């Protein structure tokens, strides 16, 4: 009867031994390789510090002008550009300029990193079905596992600071760009691809001349999603020592400062909306050849 009412579990002593063994093994790994891994990420850390300082110490009108210029280049829309300028003026006026610049810095670096890693992985997945079967479950884990769970080993390994924060953001923000690159390439019209093959195009010529250009709208939707997800990680990243808008939000939560939380939260929303509108209109312009009617 005992067998039916009590789950045949490992037992408290064995279980704690197992956990201690895993913890011990990882601790040993950290002791042995922690410094090496930290040294590996050192150039990245230096770059992030440099970039953050650049954004914070540059004269604010210059920063706003550059951001407005980027918004214009991306969207070609006066409305979006004006909205960007207004949003940043409001952020500065409400005393959130420095934190916003810090957030902007880590989001930019994270997005760039995700693109640099994610697009090649997506291409690999589109090329080989085997890669797709192997990588898809990894992406599922990355997207669904609670962030705190992977924060533990990251902090154990690298301590508290910008680099572990960046890793945490990237783990969460990488999947959409990989998935949408893969999807975009797989959705390319088979007859167009067959035509390229029939004209003797090599694998590389097909990839760069046909598949990537035709997958660009989807890839761009992936970039957009990646930015959004990176922004949503700002508060969690601030728990492990990343400067930015997440820090005051965290303070607001623990002290019940409604206004402080709201203002900084809205600043994150403003950043999200600007990034989203600019990247979406840019993505739409990429496929303008579709919209023109019969001439």
């Amino acid at each position, binding site marked *: 009867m005992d067998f039916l009412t009590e789950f045949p579990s490992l037992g408290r002593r064995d279980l704690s031994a197992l956990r201690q063994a895993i913890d011990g093994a990882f601790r040993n790994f950290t002791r042995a390789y922690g410094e090496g891994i930290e040294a590996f990420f050192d150039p990245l850390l230096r770059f992030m510090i440099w970039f953050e300082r650049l954004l914070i110490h540059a004269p604010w009108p210059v920063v706003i002008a550059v951001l407005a210029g980027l918004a214009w280049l991306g969207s070609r829309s006066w409305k979006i550009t004006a909205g960007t300028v207004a949003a940043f003026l409001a952020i500065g006026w409400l005393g959130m300029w420095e934190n916003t610049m810090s957030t902007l810095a880590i989001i930019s670096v994270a997005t760039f990193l995700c693109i640099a890693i994610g697009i090649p992985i997506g291409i690999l997945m589109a090329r080989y079905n085997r890669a797709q079967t192997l990588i898809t479950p990894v992406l599922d884990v990355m997207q669904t596992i609670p962030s705190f769970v992977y924060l533990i080993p990251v902090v154990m390994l690298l301590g508290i600071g910008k680099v572990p924060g960046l890793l945490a953001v990237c783990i969460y923000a990488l999947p959409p760009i990989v998935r949408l690159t893969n999807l975009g390439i797989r959705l390319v019209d088979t007859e167009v691809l067959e035509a390229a093959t029939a004209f*003797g195009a090599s694998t590389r010529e097909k990839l760069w001349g046909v598949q990537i*250009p035709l997958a660009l709208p989807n890839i761009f939707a992936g970039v957009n999603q990646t930015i959004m997800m990176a922004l949503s990680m700002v508060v969690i990243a601030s728990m492990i020592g990343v400067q930015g808008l997440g820090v005051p939000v965290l303070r607001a939560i623990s002290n019940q400062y409604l206004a402080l939380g709201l203002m900084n939260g809205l600043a994150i929303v403003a950043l999200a909306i600007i990034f989203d509108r600019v990247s979406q209109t840019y993505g739409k312009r990429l496929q303008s050849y579709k919209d023109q009617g*019969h001439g």
Partner: protein
Amino acid sequence: MADDVTEPKIRIRNLYKIFGEDPAAALAQVQAGASKAELLETSNHVLGLRDINLDIPAHGLQVIMGLSGSGKSTLIRHFNRLIDPTAGEILVDGEDVMAMNDTALRDLRRFKMSMVFQKFGLLPHRTVQQNVEYGVHIQGLSDDEAQRRAARWIDRVGLAGFEQHYPGQLSGGMQQRVGLARALATDADILLMDEAFSALDPLIRTDMQTVLLDLQAELQKTIVFITHDLDEALRIGDSIAILRDGEVVQAGDPQAIIMDPADAYITDFIKDINRAKVIRIRSIMVPGPGGGQGAPVRTSQTIEEILGVLHDSPDGVCPVIDKAGKTVGTISMNAVIGALESRKTAEVARYS
């Protein structure tokens, strides 16, 4: 071009294609005589092509005709190995395509064969000009050369002025002109056309057939043209192969197919065509020194074209002359009526 008679441009020998998990095992079954239905039933393999033998002479327009599912699109994709056969030989200019490595195969596709697709297969993100340049770029030629050739062929297919348009801005007929220009720009001597005009409206289709025939008169390429449309096949084909369930049922001169269909399937196939428009005098005349009281008619004319002349002849017989004007036989009203009536009477007509 005497050597072309002995050496076909493309030669297909004992070609089999079976789709499924273990084509090699299924091949043995097929070679032992299993039918398409039996093969599907017993081993869940689909018979794509069975024992295809086809010689395609240089400078001719070979039509491969069949209804959907007959394997015609599968067959044409074997010529440049977009599909690999289960068994069989494909020779292009005497070279074994099956023995080619990747580089040789790419060169074959780049320089020797080009292809036109049913749904055009144009690059939607490139302009007409860039699309036509595509094959030339892949050949590794300079931008100047690509531009020069593209300009020439865009003009030749009647699209001058549309160079900077995107394919999505053009009608179907115009898009296929782009497809044709792209294929011609590579200067390949073999042109594969997979149901190239099937997606077009009837009027535009006729239009495109004319474009193709005009170009062919001048360029003398070897063209393999896939279609399911018998009228199209008869209009443009120098030679027709009819495919059914992956097998060639009859191949040869279009006239021979109409006058002497190999089996009930083909008889049924050709029963709805307007025979007066298709049958030519050479197919139904009685060879001989000539005679008859009517005005002479030419071997290349259709029945429809000579009906009036024949009717005016007092004895219902006209002499037939060939291209050179030499009398080669006679044609009688009886023969014409016989040919129009049905396939059997064609034989009677020959001896009347």
